[in-house]
């Protein structure tokens, strides 16, 4: 049997309290494999986009002339026959934001509603950490994980541009990467709000993913009608790709709307989560 020390005040060196950092780093570690997987997918897609471009550019040039305008509109107004249009259609317009949103939704849903459903939240919040700190730490972890996908998307475009001699601009690749990160953060904010209010994983991921899908549909289809075109501006997806960041670089107003919207959702979450009875 070990020697016994009575539970009085600690006499030796002690571990200092860093609750915000502890929850943030724990949450990042938990979902880092997912972010790395999605990031690797972005690198692979970039390689594929670049690798296929030399063989397909001629075909696309012929095809573009035959496609109706509506198709080009769905690709964000950039034709497939240009390097930007090809990379935008294959990676930036859909695959990368879906990856970023998936990472954001899974990280925040598992990190907030998941902790409540699995009841780890009970023992975690018995430590001296406020609910506000808990939510902010989870939001920070989400931003970090989404940024990994954003950076991987940039690297994927960089590799693709080099492999396929596509000549994509640095400002465009950085712009696309920043917009991908921003849309991920916005929908991460949506999932934080729903997860913190409901404490239910299925509801959170279903509702947040559903909103992202609706948002994509609204931003893609409403501009096809002159009378409905302005309605697209109500969709967060509009601010992700309407300005074609891969062609034009960062559209700061749009990025601020997405990141600011995400931050507003997190701020809205705080008083609601603070008041709620927790289940786990």
């Amino acid at each position, binding site marked *: 049997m070990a020697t016994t020390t009575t539970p009085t005040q600690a006499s030796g060196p*002690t571990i200092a309290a860093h609750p915000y950092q502890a929850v943030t780093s724990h949450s990042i570690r938990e979902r880092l494999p997912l972010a790395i997987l999605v990031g690797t997918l972005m690198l692979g897609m970039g390689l594929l986009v670049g690798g296929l471009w030399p063989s397909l550019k001629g075909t696309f040039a012929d095809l573009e002339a035959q496609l109706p305008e509506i198709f080009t509109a769905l690709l964000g107004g950039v034709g497939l026959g240009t390097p930007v249009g090809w990379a935008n259609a294959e990676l930036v317009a859909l695959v990368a934001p879906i990856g970023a949103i998936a990472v954001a939704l899974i990280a925040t849903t598992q990190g907030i509603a998941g902790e409540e459903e699995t009841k780890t939240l009970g023992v975690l919040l018995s*430590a001296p950490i406020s609910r506000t700190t808990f939510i902010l730490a989870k939001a920070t972890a989400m931003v970090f994980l989404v940024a990994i996908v954003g950076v991987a998307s940039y690297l994927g475009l960089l590799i693709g541009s080099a492999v396929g001699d596509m000549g994509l601009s640095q400002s465009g690749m950085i712009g696309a990467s920043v917009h991908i990160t921003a849309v991920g953060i916005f929908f991460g904010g949506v999932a934080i709000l729903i997860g913190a209010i409901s404490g239910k994983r299925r509801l959170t991921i279903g509702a947040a993913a559903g909103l992202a899908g609706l948002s994509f549909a609204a931003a893609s289809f409403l501009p096809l009608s002159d009378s409905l075109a302005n309605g697209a501006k109500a969709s967060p997806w509009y601010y992700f790709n309407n300005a074609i960041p891969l062609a034009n670089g960062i559209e700061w107003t749009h990025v601020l709307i997405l990141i600011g919207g995400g931050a507003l959702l997190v701020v809205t979450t705080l008083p609601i989560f603070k008041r709620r009875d927790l289940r786990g």
Partner: protein
Amino acid sequence: MSDAAIEINGLTKRYGSMFAVNDLDLRVNAGEIFGFLGPNGAGKSTTIRILLDQIRANDGSASIFGRDIRADSLEIRRMVGYIPGDLALYPKLTGKQTLDYFARLRGGVEKSYVDELAERLKADLSRKVGEYSTGNRQKIGLIQAFMHRPKLLILDEPNAGLDPLIQQEFHSLLTEAREAGGTVFLSSHTLSEVERVADRVGIIRHGRLIEVSRVDELKSKAIRRLDFEFVEPAPEGMFDNVPGIRSVEIDGVHARVSFDGGINDLLKAAMTREVANLHSREADLEEIFLAFYRDDESAPEPAPGESRKGDEAHVR
């Protein structure tokens, strides 16, 4: 500073029309081990979770070491070590990683003390929590509750899955905590867990505290039993008018009598016949506890606005 570790006044928690905790008053003195007893669904865990500010009471107030459980929750949680009744940990982390995580959340944790606790509870910290048995997972929960040497330990069904030797060690930790000036609030639905270590016990039923007393006082209120053997068959009804009689079984020359209160009237009634032999048994605490449970089951239908056991099935 108040000398009460926990002070609860009129605490009430409702879910719709159902009362999980109903006008609960309780005082736990600093430096004592207090057993908080009740059947599953009586409101024990709800009370604890209100104290930790995880759920909010509809009415009433509570303080820990004189601090309000809502306004001063963070300060309170620095002083508290807690293990929940349905402990859940992170399955992908090892025991050591789990404790490192909680140490960084809390601060003030001495690594050598964590190692000592792990050795005393024979906890293997190298494996992933997801691979642990219930008992081994519980050991990690206990270490995280004790490791910052809290002034107040709030332990909800802490013995789950622990083998008898580890239970013994756990009881030593509790008594050491008390000797060092700490307070223990020990919630359980089994009395044997509490009987060995508690100074006082409170019994909660339907969200209401129905009994608070020292363990020895509780025993003095026990329903005791006398087994008489008479020389000749005993007549039915010979103990009918004796005060304090709870039950009588007469079978020929044998009579088995359960009673509480004084013994003189019972003996007087028995001595009207020639007694050949007499056995006395003192009920242990478990019997007293079960008597409260039986009373619970035979409780009348609650009035509107009152709680009832069946309604509380989901309340932990």
